[in-house]
């Protein structure tokens, strides 16, 4: 079973996941403001981000881009990500 690396995820993700960087019309539930005045060390590039899916069933996830946090709910997107994990032999616990 091949390890699911970040690089392989991006290379092998289905077409629908390729729109992650765009996120059209995603309902943003909350945006946490960046700590006033603090400068982010090791500034990340504008093309990278982290998605944390906290609840697959509810579609609750956090998108981290640079120093910003965006909380959103999209069950369809969460299900797609879970499907990708399962297809790589990494089924999520119920």
């Amino acid at each position, binding site marked *: 079973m091949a390890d699911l*690396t970040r690089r392989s995820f991006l290379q092998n993700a289905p077409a629908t996941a390729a729109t992650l960087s765009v996120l059209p019309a995603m309902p943003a539930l909350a945006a946490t403001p960046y700590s006033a*005045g603090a*400068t*982010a060390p*090791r500034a*990340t590039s504008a093309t990278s981000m982290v998605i944390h899916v906290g609840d697959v069933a509810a579609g609750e996830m956090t998108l981290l881009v640079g120093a910003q*946090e965006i909380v959103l709910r999209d069950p369809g997107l969460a299900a797609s990500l879970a499907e990708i994990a399962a297809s790589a032999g990494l089924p999520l616990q119920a």
Partner: protein
Amino acid sequence: MSSHREAPEISKDPVADNTDVYAFVSPDNLDTVTLIANYIPAEAPDGGPNFYEFGDDVLYEIHIDNDGDGDVDITYQFQFQTTLQNPDTFLYNTGRISSLTDPNWNKRQSYSVTRVRNGQATVLGEDLASPPCNIGPFSTPNYDALAQAAIHQLPSGETVFAGQRADGFYVDLGSVFDLLDLRPFQNLHIFPMPAGPGVNGLNRLNVHTMAIQLPKSMLTRDGSNPTNPNDPRSVVGVYASASRRQAIIFGPNADIDEYGPWVQVSRLGDPLFNEVIIPLGRKDFWNSQPPRGDKQFLKYVQTPEVPQRLVEYYPGVFPNLAAYNKPRADLVAILLTGIPAGIIPGFQNFTGQTLADLLRLNMAIPPSASPDILGILGGDLAGFPNGRRVVDDVFTIELRALAGVTIPLVDPSFTPDAASSVVTDGLTPSSIKSPFLASFPYLGTPYSGFDNPSS
């Protein structure tokens, strides 16, 4: 042990571990206040080849509440950057370090200071040099001069220092956490042994210090100069914190990317609060919370565990304490609101009804000519819990308070046990090998690795 490795998660993250906070009217500069926050507990002096340093990936902050609502009004942020002059050597220094710009000094750290006030962030200084660690007589022969050169006067009026110092907290760590087996009194312990002198468990260990000295008027809510101890504007609440980015991704080639906002992982106001007041199951959570929400921890202050343990481990020594079952309103005042006027003659450090663990300093009370290390318990109104000076014996003060000596402040019907006013771990500032300084940054010269090997 004021807050050294006091919670499960932060004990695994020493670079972000806030160990002590001090706040006092500067004894040699009476119009100013000095704020100190220490991090990185128990630094062994012989810390090579990668000597201790602040974390480039940590946001260090000192916060001030000056209007009594438990919310932060002013924050000083410190952020660090490490640079290598020569990445092709394994050495921290390749020769004697004679100055902060000496080419022999390879691995250096500098920092920026930002002040946030009323939501406005102002960068006060950038590329400020930290001194090297104190290595030994060949590498850092004139260490005090290096440290002195790392004191920066900012154009905005603050004086800052960030670097290694000798740990100024003194406590018999080994005996305290051997179930309060205090050496001067261990003949009375449930596991009795002959009484003996205390041993400073942090002696000959270093910390990393952030220190700020600034005019009092820069801390008050209206820019006034505090002269009246009864004026609420004279009191500020202080705490420090450390934060990390919400997500860190470790790549396969030692590349590290960080994402998301800062998340608080450590905080400290009063010494020993998270150490001995908050139970293990909630220490990590406590570290993540702002002080303004400390009402959720009220029950631990009202019914602290330490008195119960004193009664258990010293049978028959604290009978009055054992019989006292009222909520500890004295500790709530000392730790969560400040002491209101009318309780202790000539003193108040009350910040209002918002329950918050803050170090509360009444800036209108001048320094003592002869400080009593027992602070207010010893009749010295300039000492802890009026802020905290480097000399204050905060362990003994808090132990005696927990043992009941402060209950009469709120309940005159209570008579403290005789033992409550003498219980101690037996230490004083003389238990610290590197003495305190009479001037900024007040903490002693850090122990050199060559002269203080771990063995």
